[in-house]
């Protein structure tokens, strides 16, 4: 009898232990837990997704992360609201109060916009780094049967994008961590969380752009079937912009001369052609933009139009007053409560549409021409500088207004070509950039690099302090790094 008990006991234990250890070490299901070797598709995706952080598509990062500033890209807040051109809403209210903090410079390092822009740019860099790591692994690429021309064309794009994101970061935050490759594990995140000097980041930006220039094929578009991709002209323009921001005037001029020699770009006869959905990639002025499209899966529409529908994006009186009498550009920027520049059509149909087709424009020829004008003025070539400003003004006054009529004679008269006052010309230039590029997220950077931000903004009654030449590093980022990422002075 006793031995039977023992047998039963033993059998029970064996049964229950039998299946155990094997069951605890099964291969994971329903999930990808190992870095899978890149495929042709995943490489193409890695490049395309590197563009995505330039878009105004809603919720590219997270889901309605207003507190993280990640619902959409924050350029219009950090540039246009901060520069005093734009205010949050048509009727001031308490919604998304963090945006108002750029109107009065009361933001701190925990502000959502400051957080969001940092997240966007670094997410873009991480995606570009992954694409670069794929595309620089030549043997894998060869094995996948991707020819070298295609490899170069793809790699050039992501070098450009990485430079683009870093350029935004140094202008906003100064010294920033410099990451050039994907991380292997999470502990590495702490090793790379150290700020690199702005100068060294610029070295990398220039290097990436030089690479991109060598890799991207010529032609107005680098790919005639996908015209939204980075082109040679875009790389050159970016090089010129980097030179401009570093006050390397002769380089600005020579680089822009190089673009001119390509003969791809000229001012559109009609100012609004830059922004019209109907004219996308069929006009001559836009050099680099994000290609928003409606009804795609996944979504790639312009979500800023939805915000317009919710009452966001309104001009300040000071901005409206900056336009000279009858300037047709005002109507394309603000008519009633519509911002046609953003809506891509001369009606309010897209207002409230979170999936609009209007592109987000980053670089266009008028902008580049004015860089050249600025460099010419700085180097004493006054007549050439004034000539460019007058070209911009001529195009503007020859554009029909929103109402479809030409402005009255005498609108936007030419500036005096005989002027030899650098300051006067610089004044004209500043004025022209403000109205030509209004709401295009250039203004705050311009005010800062001209060194007039404090004078101008305190003149508007804002509490701009010297520290505000840089935005604060997001406090969460300092915390997450355990303090190895440091804060900008004054915050």
């Amino acid at each position, binding site marked *: 009898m006793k031995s039977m*008990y023992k047998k039963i006991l033993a059998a029970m234990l064996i049964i229950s232990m039998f299946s155990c250890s094997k069951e605890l070490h099964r291969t994971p299901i329903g999930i990808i837990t190992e870095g899978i070797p890149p495929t042709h598709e995943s490489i193409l995706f890695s490049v395309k997704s590197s563009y995505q952080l330039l878009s105004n598509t809603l919720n590219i990062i997270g889901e309605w992360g207003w507190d993280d500033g990640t619902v959409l890209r924050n350029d219009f807040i950090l540039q246009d609201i901060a520069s005093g051109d734009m205010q949050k809403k048509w009727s001031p209210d308490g919604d998304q109060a963090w945006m108002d903090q750029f109107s009065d410079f009361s933001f701190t390092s925990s502000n959502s916009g400051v957080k969001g822009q940092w997240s966007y740019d670094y997410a873009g860099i991480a*995606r570009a780094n992954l694409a670069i790591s794929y595309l620089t692994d030549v043997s894998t690429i060869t094995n996948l049967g991707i020819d070298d021309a295609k490899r170069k064309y793809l790699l050039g794009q992501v070098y450009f994008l990485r430079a683009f994101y870093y350029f935004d970061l140094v202008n906003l935050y100064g010294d920033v961590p410099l990451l050039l490759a994907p991380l292997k594990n999470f502990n590495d995140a702490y090793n790379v969380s150290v700020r690199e000097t702005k100068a060294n980041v610029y070295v990398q930006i220039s290097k990436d752009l030089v690479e991109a220039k060598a890799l991207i094929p010529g032609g107005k578009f680098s790919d005639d079937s996908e015209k939204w991709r980075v082109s040679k002209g875009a790389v050159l323009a970016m090089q010129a912009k980097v030179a401009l921001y570093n006050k390397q005037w002769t380089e600005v001029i020579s680089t822009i001369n190089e673009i001119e020699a390509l003969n791809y770009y000229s001012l559109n006869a009609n100012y609004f052609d830059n922004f019209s959905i109907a004219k996308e990639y069929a006009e001559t002025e836009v050099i680099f933009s994000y290609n928003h499209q409606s009804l795609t899966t996944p979504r790639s529409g312009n979500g800023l139009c939805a915000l317009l529908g919710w009452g966001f994006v309104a001009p300040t009186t000071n901005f409206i007053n900056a336009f000279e009498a009858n300037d047709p550009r005002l109507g394309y920027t603000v008519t009633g409560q519509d911002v046609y520049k953003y809506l891509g059509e001369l009606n309010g149909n897209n207002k409230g549409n979170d999936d609009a087709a209007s592109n987000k424009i980053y670089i266009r020829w008028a902008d580049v021409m004015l860089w050249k004008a600025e460099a010419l003025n700085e180097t004493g070539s006054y007549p050439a500088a004034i000539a460019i400003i007058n070209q911009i003004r001529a195009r503007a006054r020859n554009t029909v207004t929103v109402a479809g009529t030409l402005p009255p004679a005498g609108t936007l008269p030419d500036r005096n070509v005989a002027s030899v006052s650098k300051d006067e010309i610089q004044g004209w230039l500043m004025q022209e950039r403000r109205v030509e590029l209004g709401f295009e997220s250039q203004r705050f950077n311009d005010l800062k690099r001209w060194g007039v931000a404090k004078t101008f903004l305190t003149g508007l009654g804002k509490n701009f302090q010297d520290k505000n030449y840089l935005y604060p590093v997001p406090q969460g980022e300092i*915390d997450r790094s355990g303090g190895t990422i440091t804060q900008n002075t004054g915050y």
Partner: protein
Amino acid sequence: MKKLFKTIVRCIPIHVKPAMLFICCAIGCLFLQLPATAQVKANTTISGKVSTMLGEALAGVTVHVKNTSSTTTTDATGNFTINAAADAVLEISYIGYVNQEVPVAGKTSLIIVLEVSANTLNDVVVVGYSSQRKAAITGAVASVNMRDLDKRRVPDVAQLLQGQVAGVQVTQSTGAPGDGINITIRGVGTIGSSSDPLYVVDGLPTTSISFINPADIQSIPVLKDAAAASIYGARAAGGVIVIVTKSGKKGKSTIDINYFNGVQKVANLPTMLNASQYMNKMEESWNNSGNTGVNPYTTDKGRTDLANTDWLHELFVLGRSQNLQVSASGGSDKVQYLMSAGYYGQNGIVIYDNDQFKRFSFRTNVNANLTDRVTVGTNLQISNSIQDKISSSGDAPGVIRHAFLRPPVIGVYKDVTDPTYRAADPYTDLPFYAQNVAANGGSWNGGANKYEFASNPIAIAKYTNDKRSNLKTFGNVYAEIALLKNKELKLRSNLGVDLDMNHNKAFNKNYGDDDGGGSSLDAGTGRQNRPTNLNEERGQQTTITFTNTANYTKKIDQHSFNVLLGTEYITNYSSGISASRARFGNTDSGFQYIDFGAFPQDLWNGGAASEWALFSLFGSVNYNFDNRFFATASLRQDASSQFAANNQHALFPSFSAGWRISQESFMKDVDWISDFKLRASTGKLGNQSGLNNYNSLSIYDPQGTLIRYGNPDLKWETTNQNNIGIDLGLFKNKFSISADYFKKTTSDLLLPLGLPRVVGDVKPTIVNSGTVSNTGFELALGYRNYEHAVKFSINANAATVTNKVEKLNANLPNIYGQVSKTEPGHPLNSFYGFKMTGIYQNQQELDTYLNGAPHPDVKPGDIKFQDVDGNGIINDNDRMYLGNPNPRFNYGSNLSASYKGFDLNVLLQGVSGVEKYNDLKKIIDYDTRPFNHTVATLNAWHGEGTSNTVPRSTFNDNGSSRVSSIFVEDASYFRLKNIEIGYTLSNLFGKTKAVFQDVRFYVSAQNLFTVTNYTGLDPEAYNMFDQGTYPQSKAFLFGINIKL
């Protein structure tokens, strides 16, 4: 004479029976005085009935003839028959009641009334894989008084526990039918994991009990401390709630029917502005917003088409609930069975029938004694529940929220003469849509809107169509064999299955007015649910639990041992598929299926699966010396597939000891102390609920992009808990006290560690870091007095919890929530923001205060916040701690009383020392949009000295957009949760038993009154961030309970 006596007994109405007991005994005594010659020594058949003092029949009562081996038990109607000599003495015993010796005294029919025992020390409590006598328990184990719980007419088992056990906080997440119940035992000790307890239903561990019909419950012991719970190891850190369901009893078959039907009514609604108050308020706000020109509200005040709608009144109607439970049970010596079927249905207090909850449940329980030593049995339940998911917690579309926001000047329905009126969608949507469209040349002009876009809550209620159904099969089969001479060794093998099938289906039909927005494909359609869409998900989850235990009991002189050894193997597999479609050509119910929405842009399908396994070895030793000293040691080893490869095994030991001082000889003479025990315990528990199956591994999306970095060192959270306690019974246990002090420290918290954003958009990696502590004191008091015609008992309990974050992580010094901050030295999720100190009364005060920077937007009448750093600028650096959402003090009290056939049961329950963020108040009274307000805003600041608490009315930001102390409110409450009055007619037809034996009628009311200072809808709602919760309602029920 005997016959006469029997007749008398039979004729006595039930309600006088308790009183008759004394008389019976007296008569019995008289008989004893009769000459012995009148007695016959031979055994005769004696029948009897055992009932409570309230006249309720008691089933399963042991009836033993003293000094013989003859024993029987009562059947479900409390009747028994037994052979005994005329001078024999019957020993009557039943758990929870005072044992009685009843002399037969020559009678053949006995009426026995058992008295409820306050001394429940001999109760056997299921404490995990074994049972223990209550007197021998050394851990913090609370057994709930089921007699009180029987009087709760609630659909969810978890609700039964509310207010019953010290240190167990039970909160209804919202008042919506079928919404979840949260249970927190001894405070929240985790950040990234759930603090829910583990439920063990008939031996099967599970994480949900909402599928169980409360009427099927036999007992609910709660294992609060480490000594009691550590036998459940890595899943027990939130405590363990053991649920034992009813089983069949030997004896005559019985049928039990319980039916109730009730109504619910919304309570505690604030008063909103009526149409004219609203227009005046808007006019005032417009004037205060720096506008110039003609005030549009002044103009509109003259309109004749303004409605005066009380949206809250329109939204809330009477709710209905009903419950029917039928059970049959019985059995022989060999086989006992119980089967039950139940239906519970509730149609909530929101208009229309889209806030319903229904549950059908079926249960069988069979136990069979194959031989004297071998028992097999099964418990099986099938439960099907269907819940309407309505936006009950203020989430979109916000049916409750919009009833507060929508201006009263808009009607519920469009006028039939309105050109935009459609019979299929008669509700108003955009304010004065037709007029606006007409004035704007045929399209909606959003910019000219004066009455905001708040949706029509009645339309939301109408068009909500989101059903969540769950079909669950839950049960076990077991075999138990008793070995050795005195059956000291019991081997038990238990195989359990938990098969869970979910189906969620939401058909969101387009409605409302066309605001011109949306995609070009949807031009001309309404703005709500644009486009019409269907989301459907199906999921299936199978959990198999295989448990084997060996239990050895031995008594040597004064030493008693109980040794338990066991293994448990649990495996879980879950999978699901989901799909959504949009733009349905036909939206009739016959077309609300995936096949009928096939627009290429909207095709979306998904599917996934995951699995986990847990293998455990465990053992425990109980030692009892002379019923004076007790000690228990237990140890569990868990090996989990969810742990990382570097940390696959976890050990959870515990030790506890008790000293029953009242058993010592030196205490024998202290009459008034009937029981006195000291307890102490220490142990370790784990929590792995924050671990998803593959948290230790890096995961990628199909394109090869990293989603999250893994952590190969990941492990469970560890909770160390120490407990000391005292149990005291005074005056023959009439008065009882139980007190506990505990300290619970959870370390290695599973923290989602967000990496620096510089690495890109990756999800947080889970790491083990940080410590949270909870300390508290718990007290339970009981008093009963059954000595008079009015018999009553009171049980009361109270508990404190102090929560504190001790440590986080070097790379996560704090965690910000929407309105909260978690950092060491403060309670979890403490409210964090700006502190209001008053209202700026004039420009000079404002300029002096805000001297650090220009402040053109701040005006007199705006909210003045504390300038913490004193720099004359109010910015994020001026935020401070504003409150604590973790309840510090919970209490509850049960009173039951009876008088003759009447009985009364009252449950009071409350929470004190807790704050909530009333975000609904923010959007009603403090938003900058022209929403409706409560009448509180009639006292708004309107000039120097007019108010220092309510800021000026304005469409500009008067400071209210900030997270501030204005919205942090004391959410303490005291509630009459339940009151029930019943009347029992017993033994109606006596032995003839025509139709039924006992009938109890009852009326009950829930949430009859609430005392609170909280201005939101419901202080009890679980969320610390209250966006407008579906409120708990007052309920009135009538019920009947029939025993056949």
